[in-house]
């Protein structure tokens, strides 16, 4: 089926393509070298192909994933580089151990900027998955571990971290709360029992059974 051509601009280069193509496909078709800013190629889970886009006739610049975004006439695209970001929120997995009543203190000490949130909504509008990032930051800053749930579908693209004027690193804050609450407080009974059985030698494998023969 013949489709009409559209003209898009990627990193300042004009590319003619078809409206059925994603931004990444359009670049490939045009012979551009694509060895960075690319990953899962459409599933939208790796967060590699972060772009800023502006549609024709609109003034707003939006963040998006290039693999999920289709070409349309006049679309302007700029890739966002993955700079080696300075990680100022460094913690160890035993950050909460010892006194888990002081979790809120630890959250504030490890992510102090979360207290300074301006409620600008930049993180929410930057998120390509439309997660409630700001809500998650608020919950975490108040010591509410249900903050973790706000980041269930987070792909760690770091767009909210880039957008935040207070350098809160919302996605990393969310992951910190997720990881630590899981590490200290997730103990399924069936797994606990099975580990116990294996460690005591009560469950072993007989490699010589015949029933596995084809």
């Amino acid at each position, binding site marked *: *089926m013949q489709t009409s051509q559209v003209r898009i601009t*990627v*990193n*300042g*280069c004009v590319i003619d393509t078809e409206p059925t*193509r994603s931004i*990444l*496909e359009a670049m*490939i078709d045009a*012979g*551009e*070298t*694509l*060895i*960075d*800013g*690319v*990953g*899962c190629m459409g*599933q*939208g*889970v*790796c967060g*590699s192909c972060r772009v800023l886009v502006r549609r024709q006739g609109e003034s707003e610049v939006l963040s998006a994933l290039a693999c*999920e975004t*289709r070409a349309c006439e006049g679309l302007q695209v*700029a*890739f966002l*580089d*993955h700079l080696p970001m300075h990680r100022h929120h*460094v913690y*160890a*997995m035993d950050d909460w151990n010892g006194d888990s009543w002081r979790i809120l203190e630890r959250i504030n000490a490890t992510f102090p900027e979360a207290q300074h949130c301006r409620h600008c909504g930049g993180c929410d509008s930057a998120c390509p998955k439309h997660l409630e990032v700001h809500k998650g930051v608020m919950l975490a800053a108040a010591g509410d571990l249900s903050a973790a749930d706000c980041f*269930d*579908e*987070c792909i*760690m693209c770091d767009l909210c971290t880039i957008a935040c004027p207070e350098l809160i690193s919302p996605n990393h804050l969310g*992951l910190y709360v*997720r*990881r630590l609450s*899981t*590490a200290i*407080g*997730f*103990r*399924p*009974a*069936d*797994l606990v029992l*099975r*580990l116990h059985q*294996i460690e005591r030698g009560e*469950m*072993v*494998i007989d*490699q010589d*059974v015949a029933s*596995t*023969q*084809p």
Partner: protein
Amino acid sequence: MTGIDHRLALERLLASDHAAPNPIDDVEALLKAHHPDYREGSLVSLAVGANRGSECPTALAARLQSNARIEDADLAGAPVVDTEVLIIGGGGAGCAAALTAAEAGGRVILATKLRIGDSNTVMAEGGIQAAVGEDDSIQRHFEDTLRAGHGCADRRLVACLASSAPDSIRWLIDRGMRFDLAEGGAIGGKLLRKKPGGATRARILSFKDYTGLEMMRVLREAVELDERIRLWNRCPLVELLSDEAGHCVGAVLYDLALHSFVLVRASRVILATGGVGRLHLNDFPTSNHYGATADGLVLAYRIGAALRELDSFQYHPTGVAWPSFRLGGLISEAARSAGAHLLNGLGERFVDELAARDVVSAAILRECAEGRGIEREGMVGVFLDIPELERRQPGTLAQRLVSLGHLARQCGIDPSREPMMVRPTLHYQNGGVVIDENGTTSVPGLYCTGELSGGIHGRNRMMGNALQEIITFGRRAGLHAARSASRHPAPKVGLFHLHGWRRQLVAAGMPLDRFGPDLFPSYANFDFGHELALRGGKRTMYAPRARGVE
């Protein structure tokens, strides 16, 4: 390939009576005629290397028998870095190896071609097998896995997988990975378990239907925050380093940001470079990550490692056939097991949807090849009829097929009203480099782990064993490597193995101007020769980052 116009096919679909398909008289003939593993001329015999005489897909054989991209002269002046353990690959296996090696006190470098986390791990949806259920046992996990692999897996490896699996889950939880619960709360609850195809018990643990994403973001963060691990993004592996005895003693990386080679002298090298999907064997689309170009497999073979089951690949029946930007993307088997039908452009069912994967794949390919497929915007496939399933079993979509719903919306389809277009997609490399329980290969100093390695899945991989494999064997390789590594680099480090390799190529009449590994898919428009010519010149034309932005 052409097919029946999409609109016409939709009309016929609405008029279809969904009558049961005719049974397939001769499965062997169907497979032989249409399955890529069986297709005439799709396999060739390897002429050089440890597996000389073994059959292997033609496109992969060309890579395995390729010549090195570099000469000794290319390495002159390259910086040399020493470490005890060098890990190549930033997916789940590489990260598990790196974390474990660092915890064991080894000096570790983790180098990856794209960015850490860019891998098939992050794309895995289904889950991870571990026998934790009261009705289940590690013995059952062992037997199910062996049986599914048609009995030809390495029993020691499968026993290791099954018995280590519960501890791998504990290890993941300790690093902050969550799993869904079936009942109860975080303390004392029971894990949600799903049954993989071919299993006797429900054994798949998961986090919603993006288990791999949950795993990868935890492992990535753990590696990035671990000051003991030096992380090098955008540094693909170009060649392994050897000593005069042919042992692996390091690797040559190419730093894409600095446009320069780096020599890493390492006592232990762990390859965790994943699969081959982006080589598009037999011209198939793939569900694999952009980086899956068999780099580690090619280089392990070149330095002398033996391979196994190299003619066995998984072609998943239901990859996305339209739209193009999701081509090859995976639609889980859950849709068919819930009862969704496959129909051709005539509105006819043509295969038992729950037949073995290879049979379903071959039947879909037959419909497409014989003109009964459906064509939309130049893409050809068959219908996966979710709307009819939803009419028959209301609520299925919302309850059982959540990720399918998400995928459909990406494709601009309302899955309750419009069928998906599907065709088989290259999904997994069942075989790979021969390893032992610690991931060591037949080449001293060289380890392999993850999809790149072979022997765990036999000739068919069960759902949920890939994520388990990367954690169990990634950890074991990392631990063994760190404990056995020497603090001092090998005295003589070079490309010694290439002399013998090139002699073999010449003796076998193989071309010397076919270079490998690929590093990127052919459509990445990446020319390594051109890249080398740019070295030392000014940084320019480096898409997408540098173009027009400066």
